[in-house]
């Protein structure tokens, strides 16, 4: 089963990448873009058909390694049809 993970910086943490990119977009004329936050997208293949088990594995992977729990949040997305 494929699990998708989106990792984002916590809301109140400064995001220098997002800030610099937002500024550049403004200079290029994207006036209606009012904010940019940059995170990570991760795809995991988990050897199971049990969505709960897949979610648990992904959660543990995030807590232990994939996300920096000091300053990042993660969101786990399972396929729609399970």
């Amino acid at each position, binding site marked *: 089963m494929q699990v998708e993970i989106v990792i984002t910086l*916590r*809301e*109140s*943490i*400064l*995001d*220098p990448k997002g*800030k*610099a990119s937002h*500024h550049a977009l403004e200079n290029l004329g994207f006036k209606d873009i009012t904010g940019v936050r940059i995170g990570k997208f991760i795809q995991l293949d988990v050897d199971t058909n049990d969505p709960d088990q897949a979610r648990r594995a992904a959660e543990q992977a995030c807590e232990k390694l994939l996300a*920096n*729990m*000091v*300053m990042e949040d993660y969101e786990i997305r399972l396929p729609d049809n399970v």
Partner: protein
Amino acid sequence: MAKSKHSEPEVTIELAREHGLIDEEYEKIREYLGRTPTFTELGVYSVMWSEHCSYKNSVAVLKTLPKSGKNLLVGAGEENAGLVDIGDGLACAFKIESHNHPSAVEPYQGAATGVGGIHRDIFTMGARPVAALNSLRFGSMSEPRVRYLLDGVVRGIADYGNSFGVPTVGGEIYFDKSYEGNPLVNAMSVGIVKHEDTASAVADGVGNPVLIVGASTGRDGIHGATFASEEISEKSEAKRPSVQVGDPFTEKLLLEATLEALKTGAIVGIQDMGAAGISCSSSEMSAKTGVGMHVDLDKVPLREADMSAYEILLSESQERMLIVAHKGREQEVMDVFAKWDLNAVVIGEVTDTGRVVYLRDGKVKADMPADSLVLGGGAPVYIRETSKPEYLEKTGSTDISSYVDVADVQETMLALLQSPNIASKRWVYEQYDYMVRTNTVTGPGPSDAGVVRIKDSKKALAVTTDCNGRYVYLNPRKGGQIAVAEAARNIVCAGGKPMAITNCLNFGNPYKPEVYWTFKEAVGGMGDACEVFETPVTGGNVSFYNENPRGAIFPTPVIGMLGLIEDCEKHTTPAGFQTAGDDIIYVGASRSGIDGTEYLSFLHDLTAGDAPDLDMEFERALQQTVLRAIHEGLVSSAHDLSDGGLAISLIEKTIFSGIGANVRLDLPGQNVVEQLFSEAQSGILLSVSPERREELTSLFREADIPAYHLGVVEGDRLIIEDFADIPVETLRSIYEGVVPDAVSGNAAAATPV
């Protein structure tokens, strides 16, 4: 109050305790204000009176340090960093600071913001940073968590420093169990400024506008300063949102904009924002001249609009400065910052009330006498109880005499070379850009000190950091002396004259009398040595509460020393051998005693004995004579003896150059283990061309300093007659392999063999 957009909790003594204030401190605040503080005021007092800002538990001891000298332009604590006259109308600003606790929680950002903070201290004085150093301590690399911390800290330093564009030219790394869970990350910055361009951190001139410049203010590091003043514990985990994020790009813009804005002459005073952000910078600048400030927090550019006065005042968002401009000239300042795409907003003005007043949503949220908040003013000062630690009885009385015999000298040398404290740190320093700005004459690695030339001048700066925490643990006073003596010796070996020091005092919990005793003793030792070596203390930083559940770290008073090389071309001296055929001369004290050595610690897992021997007057004479020999052009190479003693110094001299040596050990009086592995102080290995050998040795004879001819530089092997015969390539491959193996988790390399 409840109807206000930012309602504040009621202030009680319980809330004050939660803020880390003790009951007497809370009473003192009520006394200063003549009423109960508001929640915002309580927050400001709690950070301003934290150890990190107020030095309340250390200032009485720090006052004993020698702080005057003919070359000092600014005394310790008067400005953001010390300032030393280096001639030609130039001055050098330099300072070292800790970022231990943030790095323990988030190593990458903790180290990065440490580097950013110390550079800001330097360029706030109008100086352009020209060199960075860092002094790091970790637990054993066999622990995965330690490897994670090391990797994060090194990346953090690298990414921030490399992007900011200042070369990292030196530093040191030690590994010891005592630092497990509480790594030390001390960052040093060195800058150069023309005398007339020096800026000051003062507010002056009633009616002058106050500006905030640089990055916007977010909820970063709220209570970071208080956080730095507590032991690392399970509770620290819960404080994690207080991690600040560094933005080296913004800092680079801030540097260029600040130096450009200072040139306009429109600036009265400027201070960077580090711990306790706006509250600290505004109250310190005001208190310095006895003025006040009226600040409208609604005008501060915010990352998140709904921040309260409390949050804005205590935010430790990085890459910000507070500026007082001449009235009517604020636009000039704002134009420069606009050019660099940075905020510059007038948020208040200087008043004659002596009070700092902060408004939010149009209402006064805090109104306090500036002087009551700051070090040297109303902040508390404590003289803590001391008691000599019991462990000293045990370490001092351990019988180490049985360790002076070894079966195989060569095997012992090769084994000791595998100590990560001795082996090459190339894996670390090649991640740092040590060449940017094209002034690095001697970078990290094969050198005793980093050497950075000054363009348009014959001169160069020699800079180093030093401290062997094990020595300080075994004998705090002597260990403190050695830290200064060794730093000075490193500067001298590189060809420089020691000028002044900055220090970063890393200790455990000062409320423990044993910890405080070691603190007082170590600072006393540093002071003794600074007098002897004529290197006054220009400032620095104290970091207490460096403990983990198993106890305090080794007391680690890191010395950052500045030296001046008068003639960069002629005096800069390499550490490695230079020319085959040169004679090898040992100058200095007898190699006696194995107390406190890396040999005992790494090969016998023993931290015992006294600190190594040091006679400061002798050391001073040695250093002066070596410097004289260098000035007279007699010295091909110079390298001091430190961790691992004569054996490691010899090995390094061959590895650095790729040229071998053939020596005979006949230093009088000691057995071979002492001769090779003693870390007795005051020893330097020189090489000299045979034609000038007599001239060199006679200099030392005149100064009454023993000089022994050990052998010659030759071939591609290190030969110690009767004891060792090893190809330099073998030595090099061990020396270079240890740290890369250890960081990749190969445990064999990180543990004693």
